[in-house]
């Protein structure tokens, strides 16, 4: 039997690898996507004081430390049975919105946009952020950098540092926001709203206006009928920081809606011996392997999933775009993976709008930023929406607040099974009779990219996108053909 090793050599060096096995006819028999690292946070956090979890779990992922910081702080609040003052919650969420803006911007422009704005068939040399800048104009490059700067600026103003923020603690935060800082943050927020609108406009003009791109998005290769997960507020609108987790089935009907502490009744994780990463699935549907459909517990947790799982957006401009997307793509739920990019931009707009809302809240500069925990610490769950999926932290402590048990179900992990399925499907669709061509590479790559898989979270190894190299071996092990971009 022939084997194809897809070794994502670059941008995920040593942190993920796909083996595709071909049958006698040279068609795909099976494929395996492997994650080669494990850090053991769930083990070594045991014995640490719970208030350190927002700092320790930051280091799970440097791409979205803010997500871990928040999930950990919320779990710690729950452990101490303490409800932070409103101002503390506002500050945490404000930091989180700013983070979302930088993160979604980075992903869309540096990783996603090239395929659409420059074009999937364009030469590799151009299919990158520089290519995007040439296509859309130089000033956009400056804007992208500006957006990242602003986002990190706010993270630093509220969280103390640009990367790995430090101020969220059980019961609130350690830093009070000054009026000067607030003014500055508000101004940056208003700029962010314009930037988000600009980005959506660009997407509209360049992608949606182009039939080939639209067909690509709506094509079958990137189509999976799965369950979708996302955090929603009391009105079932998308929320990143707080609320209940809502799951809809492939038909878009609400399958379940649970509060953080109930996650155990709904989520389980499957283990395979050939990878360090686990595969979460819906407990009440069950693990049926890497297949989609209503009977498979596989679900997706991405920007698109959040939109699919919600009834709309909580801010006016984002709501408009939300409606437009579903109108364009033929109603809810949308199963086309490439639509994740569009959904991401809508989330960017929501985050920017909400940023302004929070920055203009009269209570945001109140000195009342902490409630002293008084109860005996016990157990608690904290859930936020990380950009790459629902993030669950679950802690148990002794009466001194030292951790005795830790359980983490992390952003990208949620999408491990769907990614595995997408690569598998792309491979099956494109590799026929052992024939592999250059076009396949980017097509498969795009399948990955849509998820923006961040295995920094997943394995506590690395973030990034997956370019590909495919090596085809003869059964005797000789290299038959090497294809790379």
């Amino acid at each position: 039997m022939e084997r194809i090793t897809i070794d994502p050599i670059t941008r995920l060096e040593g942190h993920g690898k796909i083996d595709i096995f071909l049958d006698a006819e040279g068609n795909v028999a099976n494929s395996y996507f492997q994650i080669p690292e494990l850090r053991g946070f769930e083990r070594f956090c045991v014995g640490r004081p719970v208030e350190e979890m927002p700092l320790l779990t930051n280091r799970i992922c440097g791409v979205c430390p803010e997500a871990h910081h928040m999930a950990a702080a919320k779990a710690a609040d729950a452990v101490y049975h303490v409800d932070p003052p409103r101002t503390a919650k506002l500050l945490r969420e404000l930091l989180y919105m700013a983070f979302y803006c930088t993160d979604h911007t980075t992903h869309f422009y540096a990783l996603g946009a090239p395929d659409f704005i420059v074009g999937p068939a364009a030469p590799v040399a151009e299919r990158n952020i520089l290519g995007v800048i040439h296509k859309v104009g130089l000033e956009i490059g400056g804007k992208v950098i500006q957006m990242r700067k602003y986002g990190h600026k706010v993270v630093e103003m509220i969280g103390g540092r640009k990367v790995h923020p430090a101020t969220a603690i059980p019961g609130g935060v350690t830093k009070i926001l000054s009026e000067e800082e607030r003014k500055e943050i508000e101004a940056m927020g208003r700029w962010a709203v314009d930037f988000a609108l600009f980005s959506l406009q660009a997407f509209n003009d360049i992608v949606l206006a182009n039939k080939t791109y639209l067909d690509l998005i709506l094509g079958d290769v990137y189509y999976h009928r799965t369950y979708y997960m996302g955090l929603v507020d009391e009105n079932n609108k998308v929320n990143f920081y707080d609320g209940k987790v809502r799951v809809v089935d492939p038909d878009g009907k609400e399958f379940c809606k649970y509060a953080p502490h109930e996650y155990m009744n709904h989520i389980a994780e499957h283990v395979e011996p050939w990878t360090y990463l686990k595969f979460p699935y819906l407990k009440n549907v069950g693990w049926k392997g890497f297949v989609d459909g209503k009977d498979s517990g596989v679900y997706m947790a991405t920007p698109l999933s959040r939109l699919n799982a919600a009834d709309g957006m909580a801010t006016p401009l984002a709501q408009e775009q939300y409606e437009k997307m579903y109108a364009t793509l033929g109603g809810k739920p949308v199963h086309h993976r490439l639509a994740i990019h569009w959904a991401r931009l809508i989330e960017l707009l929501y985050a920017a709008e909400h940023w302004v809302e929070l920055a203009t809240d009269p209570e945001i500069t109140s000195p009342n930023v902490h409630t002293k925990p008084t109860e005996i610490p016990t157990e608690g769950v904290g859930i936020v929406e990380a950009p790459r999926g629902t993030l669950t932290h679950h802690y148990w402590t002794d009466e001194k607040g030292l951790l005795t048990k830790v359980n983490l179900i992390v952003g990208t992990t949620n999408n491990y099974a769907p990614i595995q399925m997408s690569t598998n499907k792309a491979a099956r669709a494109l590799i026929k009779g052992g024939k592999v061509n250059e076009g396949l590479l980017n097509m498969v790559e795009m399948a990955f990219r849509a998820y923006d898989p961040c295995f920094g979270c997943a394995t506590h190894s690395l973030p990034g996108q997956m370019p590909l190299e495919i090596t085809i071996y003869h059964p005797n092990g000789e290299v038959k053909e090497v294809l790379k971009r």
Partner: protein
Amino acid sequence: MSASFEPVIIGFTCNWCSYRAADLAGTARIKYAPNVRLIRLMCSGRLDPTFVMKALADGADGVLITGCHPGECHYIEQNYKALRRYLLLRRVLKGMGIAPERVKLVWASAAEGMKLAQEINTFVEEIRALGPLGWNKKLAGREHPVDMPLEEVAV
């Protein structure tokens, strides 16, 4: 533990009391276990936990810290600083899975040659009972170094 095990112990002494006590033990020909190798400091207050960590990491099975009796420090009160560091150090060692009993603080005045000898003998037997630590060998052998059974936690 095998009776054949001969512990190696590093002992830190204060120039004004315990080191002179060791001298006295010598002049008085008081015999004690040869397992202890002494280092002279000017005061137990000079004892840097780094020295203890270093000794244990490099293969010592135990560390004996000696100083003037409380209230009789030649530098007035520095032995109290040694006491505080010692108590914290023991907590850290315990947290790293090393039996805190492997490090011991003993007060011995310049006149207490006999007491020092007895303390040394006692400590050597205590370490013998704990068995070898052999941290350096374990690390070199890619073996995860652990000294104590873990503490159970009631949840």
